[in-house]
């Protein structure tokens, strides 16, 4: 027998309790990681270059209020603007879905959108075909894969806040953007289907340089100041961050849940460990009599609690990592989550928490063992 073997035998002497404490650490850390992953996913701003160059121009009143189509000529001429396209959210229900369509459809000017969404990669022939036919659309590769769509397939959408439906055919596919799920179609198609209201949802523009972007937004805002449709222009990044601020409360919520989970876990492991050691008080006194020193007994206790919580971490955090790596989360979460990635930082955090649990739950029993003399310890009943 070695000291390691002795520690192992002690840790496993009550197999059910050992299993339960490993499981409670494991399950809690699994939950912790899941919450962290969801939080990251919800608040992850796109970091591509386009998002700092792109400018979104929307109605100052609200995102839902339309803008007059004639603003195009003014925006085009503003210095520092490289390209601009109408960008109207259709928000229809795709025929393949029953209640909820998780990808967006935008009405754009096909000739102009290519110069605004510069990171989108398309086959030139497909792109040319799309521009030429107003009933065609171009589909993000993620959506195409998810619904198993091919070129020439029909895509039908029922309007939810537009009083019209769409009946489109697929000209081709794009990829390479931060979110390759959107369907783009001709704004003229939407205009005709909705009775030519002469309005657009937003304008999306591209500044000629990142330095210009801030100036350009100011110029756009100024150009429509005191007009019947005042606008708010901001870079896509600022727009996203504004959107994310909506999630701020959720962030706080998830953060507090995580804290509570960890704290509860601490209480559970501390009490389990105290119980496990209390039962062995007399034996520990015997070990002391045989010549084991305080620091050796402390080592036994620490190794046991540390080992159990680390095993829990391997199970919970490792399990989460394995699971989310092999899971088609996009399909399961209906597209709300894209990657659902467990980052090394989260794994590090989970293991740090487990280490802390192991150490903290050893402190109280170790202290009481150190404080008890051999004679006192021998007097305690089993």
């Amino acid at each position, binding site marked *: 027998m070695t*000291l390691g073997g002795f520690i192992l035998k002690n840790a496993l002497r009550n197999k059910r309790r050992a299993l339960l404490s490993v499981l409670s650490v494991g399950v809690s850390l699994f939950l912790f990681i899941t919450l962290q992953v969801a939080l990251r996913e919800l608040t992850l701003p796109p970091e591509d270059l386009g998002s700092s160059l792109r400018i979104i121009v929307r109605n100052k009143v609200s995102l839902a209020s339309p803008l007059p189509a004639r603003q195009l000529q003014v925006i085009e001429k503003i210095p520092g603007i490289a390209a601009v396209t109408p960008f109207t959210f259709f928000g229809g229900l795709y025929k393949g879905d029953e209640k909820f369509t998780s990808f967006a459809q935008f009405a754009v000017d096909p000739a102009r959108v290519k110069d605004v969404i510069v990171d989108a990669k398309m086959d030139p022939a497909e792109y040319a075909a799309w521009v030429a036919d107003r009933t065609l659309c171009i589909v993000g590769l993620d959506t195409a894969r998810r619904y198993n769509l091919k070129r020439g397939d029909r895509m039908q959408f029922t309007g939810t806040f537009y009083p019209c439906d769409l009946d489109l055919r697929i000209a081709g596919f794009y990829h390479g953007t931060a979110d390759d799920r959107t369907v783009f179609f001709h704004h003229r198609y939407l205009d005709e289907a909705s009775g030519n209201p002469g309005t657009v949802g937003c304008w999306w523009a591209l500044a000629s340089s990142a330095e210009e972007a801030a100036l350009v937004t100011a110029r756009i805002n100024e150009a429509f100041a005191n007009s019947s449709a005042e606008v708010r222009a901001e870079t896509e990044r600022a727009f996203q961050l504004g959107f994310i601020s909506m999630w701020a409360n959720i962030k706080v919520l998830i953060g507090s849940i995580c804290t509570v989970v960890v704290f509860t876990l601490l209480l559970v492991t501390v009490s389990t460990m105290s119980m496990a050691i209390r039962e062995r008080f007399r*034996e520990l006194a015997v070990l*002391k*009599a045989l010549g*084991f020193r*305080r620091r050796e007994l402390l080592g036994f206790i620490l190794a046991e609690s540390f080992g159990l919580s680390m095993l829990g971490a391997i199970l919970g955090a490792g399990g989460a990592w394995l699971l989310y790596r092999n899971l088609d989360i996009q399909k399961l979460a209906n597209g709300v989550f894209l990657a659902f990635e467990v980052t090394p930082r989260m794994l590090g955090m989970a293991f740090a928490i487990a280490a802390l649990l192991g150490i903290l739950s050893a402190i109280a029993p170790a202290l009481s063992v150190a404080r008890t003399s*051999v004679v006192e310890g021998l007097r305690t009943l089993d």
Partner: protein
Amino acid sequence: MAPPIVSIRDLSKLYRQGDINVTALNAVSLDIELGEFIVLMGPSGSGKSTLLHIIAGIDRPTHGSCRVQDTDVARLNESQLADWRNRNVGFVFQSFNLIPVLTAFENVELPLLLTGLKASRRRQQVTTALHLVGLIDRQHHLPRQLSGGQEQRVAIARALVTDPPLIVADEPTGNLDAKSATDVLEILRSLSQQAGKTVIMVTHDPKAAAYGTRQLHLEKGEIVA
């Protein structure tokens, strides 16, 4: 004549309980020679266990000194004392106190884990000790698979495996039937007579006391005979 292995001078132990002081030992002086089998007797609460604990280095006196082989035990710090116990004292308790998750062999091996001996050397010593108490065929049994008498013999093997000069036993036969008690007492006697160990045993049983080479009677913390 060789110097005594245990030399106690003016030893007192006081317990303070609120306002009242309890005198567990009152100015005890005593010499114990190498190889003696000392039996401590006396009424309950007379201080037998306290005296045994102080000699064995698991308790400290309030006054006086207790030297064991020229070591003033009370002067050692916690960790020196632990080390000293490991090398000099073997413990036998009334309630055996074996570790329930370890086999007989592993229980006996336990004190050797502190010695830095190689595994093969440890095995040799454990085997010898188990032979001595006649339990080599039970070495792989867990304590709960042994009878009380066998458990106590394993405990004796654990006490002598480090080859300490001093064996202390606090009512070692208190929980045993007559036959098992005799076995245990025979082993303790042979340890003192053949192996030259100094054995100090506390007992209430006059039959057990007859195994000793010298009997000491304690009363109210003082040696009366």
